[in-house]
């Protein structure tokens, strides 16, 4: 008897990520942003989500990936957190996938650095690997990691 879960998926650089669908409030296209000086580099800016001010965290920065190519506009995956809504900036949005629990595996030991903290596990899909993002940790910027990016 196997269980399935739904994941909202997205792409970052050449990586394929998923977030449990119930944690995602909505997905919206690129929004104009207000830069926040003095903030961690991970914070890309503030967006106006129907009158609510939402902090946008660039997942590329957060995961220490390469910067996005100039002219490429990120998409917003708005997730619910204890502290209200928060937007994760990603490259491209994928489908919502229903995935069998059996294909899950812990992240291999060889993953290092910040990715080790933020990737909860891997689902082995037929043609690629889906990395499960730990959203709670991803939006926590008070640790040392965020400062290094500064």
């Amino acid at each position, binding site marked *: 008897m196997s269980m399935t879960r739904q994941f909202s998926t997205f792409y970052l650089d050449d990586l394929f990520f998923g977030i449990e669908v119930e944690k995602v409030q909505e997905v919206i296209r690129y929004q104009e942003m207000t830069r*926040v*000086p003095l903030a961690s580099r991970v914070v890309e800016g*503030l967006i106006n989500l129907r009158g609510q*001010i939402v902090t946008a965290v660039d997942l590329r920065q957060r995961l220490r990936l390469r910067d996005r190519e100039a002219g490429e506009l990120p998409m917003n995956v708005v997730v619910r957190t204890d*502290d209200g809504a*928060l937007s994760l900036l990603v490259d491209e949005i994928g489908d919502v996938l229903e995935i069998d629990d059996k294909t899950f595996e812990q992240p291999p030991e060889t993953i290092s650095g910040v990715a080790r903290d933020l990737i909860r596990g891997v689902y082995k899909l037929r043609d690629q690997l889906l990395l499960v993002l730990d959203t709670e940790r991803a*939006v926590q*910027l008070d640790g040392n990691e965020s400062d290094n990016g500064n």
Partner: protein
Amino acid sequence: MAELEGMDEVVREFLVESYENLDQLDRDLVALEKSPDSADRLASVFRTIHTIKGTCGFLSFGKLESVAHVGENLLSRLRDGRLTLNAEITSALLSMVDAVRRMLSDIEGTGSDGDHDYAELIERLNLLQEVLTPPADRATAEPASGTAQVDDEPEDEEPSEATAATDAEAEVEHPAAEIDVESFETPLEMQARSADSGRVATETIETKAFAGEDVAEAKATPPAAGAAPAASATDTGESRSSNVADTTIRVDVGLLDKLMNLVGELVLARNQILQFTATQSDTAFIATTQRLNLITTELQEGVMKTRMQPIGNIWSKFPRVVRDVALTCGKQVRVEMEGRETELDKTIIEAIKDPLTHVVRNAVDHGVESPERRVAAGKPAEGRLFMRAFHEGGQVNIEISDDGAGIDPEKLKQKALQRGLVNPDQLARLSDREALSLIFLPGFSTAEKVTNVSGRGVGMDVVKTNIEKIGGTVDIHSKVGHGTTLKIKIPLTLAIIPALVVTSGGERYAIPQVSLLELVRLEGEQARRSIENIHGAPVYRLRGNLLPLAYLGRELGSDDTAKVTQGETVNIVVLQADDRQFGLVVESILDTEEIVVKPLGKQLKGIATFAGATIMGDGRVALILDVLGLAQRAGVVSEVRDRSIAEKAHHATDGGHERQTLLLLGMGDAGRFAIPLSMVARLEEFPDDSVERSAEQEVVQYRGQILPLLRLSRVLRAAAEADPAASDGDSLQVVVYTEQGKSVGLVVDRILDIVEDALDIQRSIGRDGLLGSAVIQQRVTDLLDVHGIIERAIPSFFAQAEAA
């Protein structure tokens, strides 16, 4: 289950109501002590205790009932005039009120009236009523009190009919609770009495009352008494409370908060539409937008009003606080209040409650002297604590003053030194005013002896911090021997504030208007020259004082200094941070706007430079600058502190020359002239053709009066031998000088500047119309003898003024 819930509801209502009643009780008792003969107040106090006693009996809170019962007995004696209220009885009654309050909070927390032992208090209250009543007398006391009550009744009713719900409900209780005292009376008699006072007895309501459907009904039902009077009381209660219910309802604060948020959203949407409308030409659309604009503004005001509460709500407990503190310290203090109806947002009211209480206690404990010392100092034995609240410029001002000993700056300095808060070097340079603000330093307590009233380590610094937390300011003024005044300024509301919008690095930032002092715009040559550097720290001379500058762009990490300073204009926003001023150089200044303050997410909370964010008219987000945080980041606050102290010290030793604020005037080639600003009533500009002549004198009509004009250039021409300077064509610059209701206008060529300087008259030239010369702003400036000039030109001016 349903019944139990109904019961909880009853208890909750009982608590809410009793708390309100207790506050009233505190006020009444303190007022009573001053005028012990006020029958109305006594009756009001009696009724309140009555209500509580009756209800808690019904709700089976036995302990609470027994305390209320002895209190009521004592009160009934007072009411019948067989005892006179004195301080001892008042204290006992107040302790009773405290005990009741404590039990109420126990009920709130645990559902029962707690397990404290109040036997001692009951004994004390019992003893008090026996002091003046011999036991023999007591036997007849009960029936006597019964008749007294019947006589009193119509008198009692009158005020309650006209006043609020609490009174009406207390009144409902009256006959029901009386049954305890007068149980020997027959039900028939009672019914007759009820009918007498215009009440209709209806038996049917009884069942409804027991179902607990209405609180008033439930309360009105005595546990074991005749149903008829109870029912009749219920009946009256219903008809009366419905009148009150017609005009007021209780609303959950959570709902109001939600409404407030929604209105905030609406304001934003409105701003966006307004901005969009600016690009439209459809008149119907524009008209609709205008309507939307007006309605939104009114709605915003309306919703904000629902959250407003009069400051009297928190002030009302101060007479009691003052009384208690005064009694403990053996002082006499009278409280006076002005502006209790001044309204403030509920959240702010709550935020200032504790700081204000602290200030009041402090004022009584440390401020007001003991009666002996007051009399010795030639003051009335009774001290005066004056509280005043009023609206001013979108802010609420609260002043708390006492007429006590005042604060001796020297003592403060010694104390600060003892506690190691400042070093002797710093101390020597402190002015008296700065010494006074030492009181706000953490760890400071001036009490020479630590009493249990204040001086418990919670000092004025906490007051200051709490007030500043809600965007307010605290200021202290004191005169030794005359008293101390604490001035608090707080915003009306926190949710929507006026702000100045500026730009830096292409982004907009909002600066709360509260911190804004003035805007300075430098253009062209001025822009390049007037910003100077002191060892890398940029400064600007603002009316002769050095204003430290911070560049917004630089503080925010993008170096746009070059851009800002190389350009043709420099915009300086002069801000107040703590008690210091500094100038913030920004790229451009846009506008002032009402903004809705939104908090930042926790990822950004750590940045002290920002106080929050808001959504602008175009839908984009702008950050709100935290002025104090920004000042600290830029280092202007701490840096300036030392320098400005040094500056003041320097001025203080400046040969004792008084510092004056001067108005600088230009007079053609005759040079620069100065008039003390204190002599200037107004600066006006009149068109040339408005000048008329009356009795050989040039005059203009000014504010319904005839203002004589004196052309200074002519007055001075003979002396200065300069050409009569031509006025610039079509208007006259006039300095209006007013003395004792009479004014004269001095026509000058140009008004140059206002400076503050130590007036050091270096050369007395003894010329008519001049007092001498001084160097002001590195230039020799002549000081005008205004008095002399006017006297010579219009000899009658001062004579008439003196006569008038």
